[in-house]
């Protein structure tokens, strides 16, 4: 790996020139949704633990366990140091005139130590990522079970320099295939399927839709993976840049699934590198094939792994996978730009 790293240093093909960011689910990337609630100042701090206990039984925050009951007052010099969440507005739907006495029935919570209620906005759902947590906390203190890997990934720091160099190498193969396809008049898209455990390229393909409208680079690769296992149904032999590595005794010996050749989901545990975001057909083909992870260079207009859909995290589907974008983003983007240039040139 080292000599290759040196060769790439200082060029646009430097592994330092790009960052891979995760494409998270809608739930993980959406804005913080807020709901309204009544809070009240705690004017007598000594009553705090009793108030919390009694409020918890009168107005349990069912489904809102992420919201903390008490917060410290923001403004310095505030006459009261603490505020407590009394209830959600939806807990008291028919209340017309709101006062602390109307919110607290005489047999439930003694209002001693509480001031008059006021409306606050609190996060409706537990935060899933650090950015969501930071936004939610600006409204009301919220608990957060942090997934450290997601936090690191969102900073673009999930992969070590060595891992990035390997990813770089695989995406370079996809770029080379894309260019070979383009030479043949196909769309400039290339893809590579990798067995990450064996650090082995299983298949390389490029777009072939000049011959067949559904032979997008990903579909070509999926069939080449099947061919690497002795099956498949298309012949891409006339395209030298579309190739596969036959699964031999040597390459399959470490595969834990006992017999890789007979596993029903042919891409289980494999990674895909593709120069641009797959379309709906290709993305769903990857679900059916049980791909392990997908890395793409640049987004596409109808893309189904982040842009139009997030099929990799779609509710109700039986297989989910991680997706990262931005690997060698600049050269991957340039594949499209030079396409446009060509079209302009030929138009003149």
């Amino acid at each position: 790996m080292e000599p290759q790293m040196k060769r790439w240093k200082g060029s646009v093909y430097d592994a330092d020139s790009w960052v891979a960011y995760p494409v998270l689910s809608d739930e993980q990337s959406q804005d913080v949704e807020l709901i309204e609630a009544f809070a009240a100042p705690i004017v007598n701090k000594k009553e705090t633990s009793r108030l919390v206990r009694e409020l918890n039984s009168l107005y349990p925050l069912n489904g809102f366990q992420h919201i903390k009951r008490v917060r410290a007052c923001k403004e310095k010099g505030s006459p009261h140091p603490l505020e407590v969440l009394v209830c959600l507005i939806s807990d008291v739907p028919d209340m017309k005139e709101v006062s602390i006495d109307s919110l607290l029935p005489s047999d439930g919570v003694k209002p001693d130590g509480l001031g008059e209620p006021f409306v606050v906005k609190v996060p409706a759902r537990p935060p899933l990522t650090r950015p969501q947590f930071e936004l939610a906390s600006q409204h009301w203190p919220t608990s957060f079970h942090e997934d450290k890997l997601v936090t690191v990934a969102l900073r673009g720091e999930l992969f070590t320099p060595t891992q990035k160099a390997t990813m770089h190498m695989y995406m370079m193969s996809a770029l080379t295939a894309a260019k070979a396809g383009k030479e043949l008049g196909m769309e400039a898209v290339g893809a590579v399927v990798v067995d990450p455990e064996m650090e082995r390229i299983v298949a390389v393909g490029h777009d072939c839709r000049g011959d067949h409208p559904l032979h997008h680079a990903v579909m070509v690769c999926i069939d080449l993976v099947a061919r690497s296992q002795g099956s498949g149904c298309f012949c891409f032999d006339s395209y030298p840049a579309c190739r596969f590595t036959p699964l031999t005794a040597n390459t399959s010996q470490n595969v834990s699934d006992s017999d890789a050749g007979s596993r029903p989901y042919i891409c289980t545990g494999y990674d895909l590198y593709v120069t641009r975001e797959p379309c709906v057909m290709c993305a769903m083909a990857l679900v059916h094939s049980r791909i392990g992870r997908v890395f793409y260079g640049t987004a596409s207009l109808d893309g189904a792994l982040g842009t139009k859909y997030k099929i990799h995290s779609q509710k109700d589907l039986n297989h989910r996978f991680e997706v990262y974008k931005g690997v060698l983003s600049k050269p991957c983007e340039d594949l499209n730009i030079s396409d446009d240039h060509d079209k302009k040139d030929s138009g003149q």
Partner: protein
Amino acid sequence: MGPEDCEAESLESFFPTDEDIDKWMSSAFDMAREALENGEVPVGCLMVYKDEVVGKGRNEVNETKNATRHAEMVAVDQVLDWCRCSGLDVRSVCERTVLYVTVEPCIMCAAALRLINLPVVVYGCRNERFGGCGSVLDVSSAHLPQTGTTFKCVSGHRAEEAVEMLKTFYKQENPNGHLNSHLF
């Protein structure tokens, strides 16, 4: 007359009649039943162009180890071959072809059908797990300007029968009740 009127009129003129639907769906159901009797995924599908079957398919996932070989994808390949043999332009044939299939096409197949500009799909039952014509996603009518053209769906024809066949198949496949979900 604008180009849109033109399109609307020509779609009307070859849109399947109830009679067409009965006839071709009955063939599709025969294929599905035959598949079920052979222990295969009970989905039957055929592509009809000018009252002629130009493509037929059954699920070929297991024998090809290619998880994308759904019945519809196999049928599309036959249509392409048929066009080549007949010396006809793929696009102009596909634009006048109807797909009859016993189960709602999955998300992948729905996108593929858009990409070949197929205008009408007639199907039996919903595909609750993977359906791309409304059950999981509505790929058939979504705004996807780079993914071919939208298509119309006629659904519900002999739906209970199609569901029964799927249930029977899954019971055979997996008597424990765990659905073996890779198969269609």
